[in-house]
């Protein structure tokens, strides 16, 4: 093993949902139309895949670009190898969360606390004649069940400090 290079990195990414990354032949089609190309520090699925294949753990952990993805699916549609670059971007985020807790989005806690990323009980509803919200945000019994289900997940077990019942 060359110093700093870890051949297991590919396997770890495959397990986290990037199964098709071995198909990538570095053509760069995925970056041609990526919206983040407007940035001076764009997200390049091609480059990230290369880093994974080289086994450069530290370099991959430094990358903030996976979090720029707008989830537009452009790369996924156009990749000639069906390497599923968008799924790989998500898999890299998961790997980063696993390596370093500070990557884990706090929105997870919001969803656990109220079922949504934000407060969906907008008072305007009544004014304009919308029916009452019936999602978990307004249904105690369903909310309890929803939380019980989430407690079964590894995310809950591992990052329990994020999750609070408001």
């Amino acid at each position, binding site marked *: 093993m060359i110093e700093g290079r870890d051949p297991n990195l590919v396997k770890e990414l495959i397990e986290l949902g990037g199964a098709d990354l071995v198909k990538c032949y570095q053509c760069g089609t995925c970056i041609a139309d990526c919206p983040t190309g407007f940035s001076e520090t764009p997200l390049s699925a091609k480059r990230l895949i290369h880093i994974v294949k080289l086994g450069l753990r530290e370099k991959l952990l430094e990358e903030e670009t996976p979090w*720029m993805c707008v989830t537009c699916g452009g790369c996924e549609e156009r990749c000639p190898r069906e390497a599923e670059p968008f799924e790989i971007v998500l898999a890299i985020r998961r790997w980063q969360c696993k390596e370093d807790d500070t990557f884990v989005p706090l929105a997870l806690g919001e969803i656990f606390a109220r079922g949504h990323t934000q407060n969906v009980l907008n008072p305007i509803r009544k004014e304009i004649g919308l029916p009452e919200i019936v999602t978990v945000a307004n249904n105690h019994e369903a909310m309890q069940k929803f939380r019980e289900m989430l407690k079964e997940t590894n995310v809950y077990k591992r990052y329990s400090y994020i999750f609070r019942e408001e």
Partner: protein
Amino acid sequence: MKFCLFLGCNMPAIRPDAELGIRLSLQTLGVEVLDVEGASCCPAFGTFPSVDEDATLAINAWNLANAERKGADIAVQCGSCYSSLKLGRYKLIHGKLEEINQKYLSKVGMRYEGKTDVRHIIDIMHNVIGVDKIKNSLRYSLKGMKVVVQNPCHVLRPSKKVGFDDPENPIALKNIVKALGAEVPRYSRERQCCGGAGGFAKHDKKANLEFLKKKLDAMKDEVDPDCIAVSCITCLMHMDNAQAELRKLGMIDYEIPVFDYCQLLAICQGHDPSKVARIATTPRDAVISKILRNKI
């Protein structure tokens, strides 16, 4: 005909008027709109999908199972919700269903059979209801008006898993806007995404605004439209709100009002614009007055 309306988070939280537009226009077209008790966040890509796939599929399945109990497919407008639920359903019915049911849903007495599907509003309007029925429901029209469309990325790509339209040359949204009587001219950056979803704006605001400006400039220079029709809560909020920022920064000197498709449809069907199109950053009054002068 009945559908379970999936609200997601942004629409009820920030733009409940768009939700009203969807409900009223569907009901006017004879669709029974059902509410899903116990629905939650889809979950959005920046949340559970960025941390753990099993937890993501469990929440997808939770939402699908709740709709399945109502015996109807899901109708959804938000592109991200559509994509999260549709891709989740794809993964479930292509292998993970039993495992997710057993490990998570069964623990709280639930189960997703894989029956309930996820349909986007554009798909329902174009392929289930159809343009003729839409035309017959109108009391006002967009005659004499030019409208450009912004298709939500998430309904087009990846086309094999989520698509119902041609990903390179989508026509469904155009057709249903034309059904309202508008002219829908082509512009060069029609296929460009709005840039509003995910972390792009948060990580590089300047590049994000420049990206959207390119698209808006193409609309303005090539078409000079009365308004933009979208069918995704992120497109609606981003294209509307970011215009104010672009003007403040001196990057653009024009305004293009933005409507959700169902807001335009509901107004054309005679529903109260002060309710179905109440919230906007870029003023829409001129467009609304124009529509109300176009009585059929």
